[in-house]
């Protein structure tokens, strides 16, 4: 294949990765930024989203797009509810202690994973894409659905940005992130904000999973890679920075795509990890983060 089309394919693949990664990492970043909780179970919320998408789309007969749309709405809501319960039952009782919550979310990771294994099973199951249009380029064919993932993710990111910066809910969240004690003193129900943020973070991961599951497959171990990549993105982008997270996701996604296509996927992971090390050494607050006070 010539260089031009080769690069085009690499960029497309990279953008699809970026799109999904941006949503997943944004969820992690929000939780980290507002609650100072390292949610190790984040990847499992992603997996739950995919597994629920399979369950919902198989329960609804008729055109595959019906089942998919239902999954796109319902799966994140259910995952958000599960996250809310987990937050109330576990994180809140630990007073959001940073060390204790890491251990607790590791426990949650295993509980969710094993429950999925018990009730969903160890198989990888496909979800039919809502439409299967194949875009025919002169050099290769490309899935039209994959391109729609990029668009859908961009829309969701803009919506999240709008909520965070232009609404009262966003203002309350930012106030809590900036200084939770002062926020509480000004009458912000920090406790409820925490619950909402944790649920929202999980929902972002779930929606990313619903988008990816028609081109991947729902499997109980699928949460591991997104978790790792999300951490990489959050560290590079800067904690709690929406802009940093998106920029870092595009950077990591594109470099992953291009390096994977031209060299090897292993090299792409090596470089991403090296980048994390460099950021931690030279700019610990991340590319767009502000130094902690």
């Amino acid at each position: 294949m010539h260089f031009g089309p080769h690069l085009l394919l690499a960029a497309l693949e990279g953008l699809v990765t970026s799109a999904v990664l941006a949503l997943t990492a944004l969820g992690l970043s929000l939780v980290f930024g507002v609650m100072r909780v390292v949610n190790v179970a984040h990847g499992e919320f992603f997996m739950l989203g995919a597994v629920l998408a399979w369950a919902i789309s198989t329960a609804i007969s008729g055109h595959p797009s019906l089942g998919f749309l239902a999954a796109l709405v319902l799966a994140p809501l259910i995952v958000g509810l599960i996250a809310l319960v987990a937050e109330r039952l576990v994180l809140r009782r630990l007073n959001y202690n940073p060390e204790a919550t890491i251990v607790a979310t590791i426990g949650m990771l295993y509980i969710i994973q094993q429950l999925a294994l018990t009730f969903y099973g160890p198989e990888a199951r496909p979800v039919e894409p809502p439409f299967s249009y194949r875009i025919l380029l002169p050099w290769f064919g490309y899935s039209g659905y994959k391109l729609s993932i990029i668009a859908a993710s961009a829309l969701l990111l803009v919506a999240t940005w709008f909520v965070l910066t232009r609404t009262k809910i966003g203002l309350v969240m930012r106030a809590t992130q900036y200084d939770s004690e002062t926020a509480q003193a000004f009458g912000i129900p920090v406790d409820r904000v925490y619950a909402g943020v944790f649920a929202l973070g999980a929902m972002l991961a779930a929606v990313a999973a619903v988008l990816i599951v028609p081109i991947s497959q729902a499997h109980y171990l699928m949460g591991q890679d997104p978790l790792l990549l999300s951490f990489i993105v959050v560290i590079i982008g800067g904690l709690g920075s929406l802009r940093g997270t998106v920029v870092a996701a595009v950077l990591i996604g594109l470099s992953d795509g291009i390096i994977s296509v031209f060299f090897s996927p292993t090299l792409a992971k090596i470089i991403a990890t090296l980048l994390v090390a460099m950021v931690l050494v030279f700019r610990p607050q991340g590319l767009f983060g502000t130094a902690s006070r």
Partner: protein
Amino acid sequence: MTDKNGFFDLSKTGLTRRTALKGLAAGAGLAVAPGFVRYSQAQSSAPIKIGFQSHRTGIGAAYGRWYEKTTAAAVKAINEAGGINGRPVEVIIEDDGTDPGRGAEVVGKFATQHKTDIVYGTLFSHVVIGSAPAAGEAKMPYFVVSEGHHVASTKLNRYVFQPGITDVKSQIQSMAPWIATNAGKKVTQIFPDFAFGYDHRDYLPPALKAQGAEVIAQIAIPPTESSFTKYFPQIPAETEVIYHVMVGPAVLTFVKELGEFYGSNRPQLFGFIDSLEATDINSPGLEFLDGSHFWEGSPRYAQPDDSAAQKAYRAAVGIDDNGAAVGDPKDVSTAAHMFGCWETLYVVKKAMEDAGYKGPEDRAKLVEATEALTEFAEGPEHPQGPKTFNGKIHQCFGIQNISKVEGGRLNVVHKTKIEDGLYEPEGDYTTQPL
């Protein structure tokens, strides 16, 4: 040291001659008591315990589930026909998570905790390679159904056998002439990046070269990969045949993305059914496979010339004419591999009977009796076809099927002969001490 209580002073204990006699009588009574006799009878009719190292979770889960179904069916048939040496067979299943480290632990658990007679049933080659040393150390006969060349390479140890399924080297050697003649001369290989894939990487190029064809590119993909399009640009444009073999939970994605990439304007495809095992070939997005060819150990779809034994085997395991579970057409089996479980258990039965196997103390005898086997005739015990067995390399040899995707099913278009897959042994396990 003082002995205040006279604990060590035998003269102070009340051991009179009468007590001693009573003790003796009681002991003798116990020995002839009905309970004691029952116990010794029970030992000879106690079940033969087979430890089944199953891929219940992890990337091999689909195989594990069907290996369990096949094993249950074979054990039921064996027990209904009187068991092994008149003793029933009991299968104890442990999940290895398709993980080599866990696999070795499971073998240890069978040896020390369950005290099974043998260990059996492993598929994934990295788990076999990881578990074999543990089996050798425990002197535990280890019957795998793995397909990899590692057993026959004689790099493992004397306790590891593969009598129920042929190895990759033999499969490739017997199919290379067909590929070179019917598919094309310039071949690009796509294979999983671990032991099983390396067998394909190492043995296809020489096998094709002998037929005047060549491998022009080799693409290794990690078995845990979930997206594949990024690998396809590495396929050279002059490729005439794509030889693909993938494993893991994402095989359907792999084939779908291959279809998206090429559409109908594709090179010839020759795949190992592993790329689609446990997956419906009529899944949306797989239409482009029509007309392509697959290797199958045992055909997934019922064929017009199926033997009575093959039909009986399919009924016993519970798969319909499309190779899916009876009553659930979506639950597609791993038909191309799982017959190996059925056949391996019958080999174990034969070897145990030849050895007059009584219990774990006879494990060495069982190893020698297995090594002494030479052929397995086609029939109810070996429904896939006739096989020969080389006791020096612990490996069986049999026929291979090449099937074409036509009208939404796989039709066998070519069967190889046993001789096509024979090669010079690379070593001799029988020289190793037991």
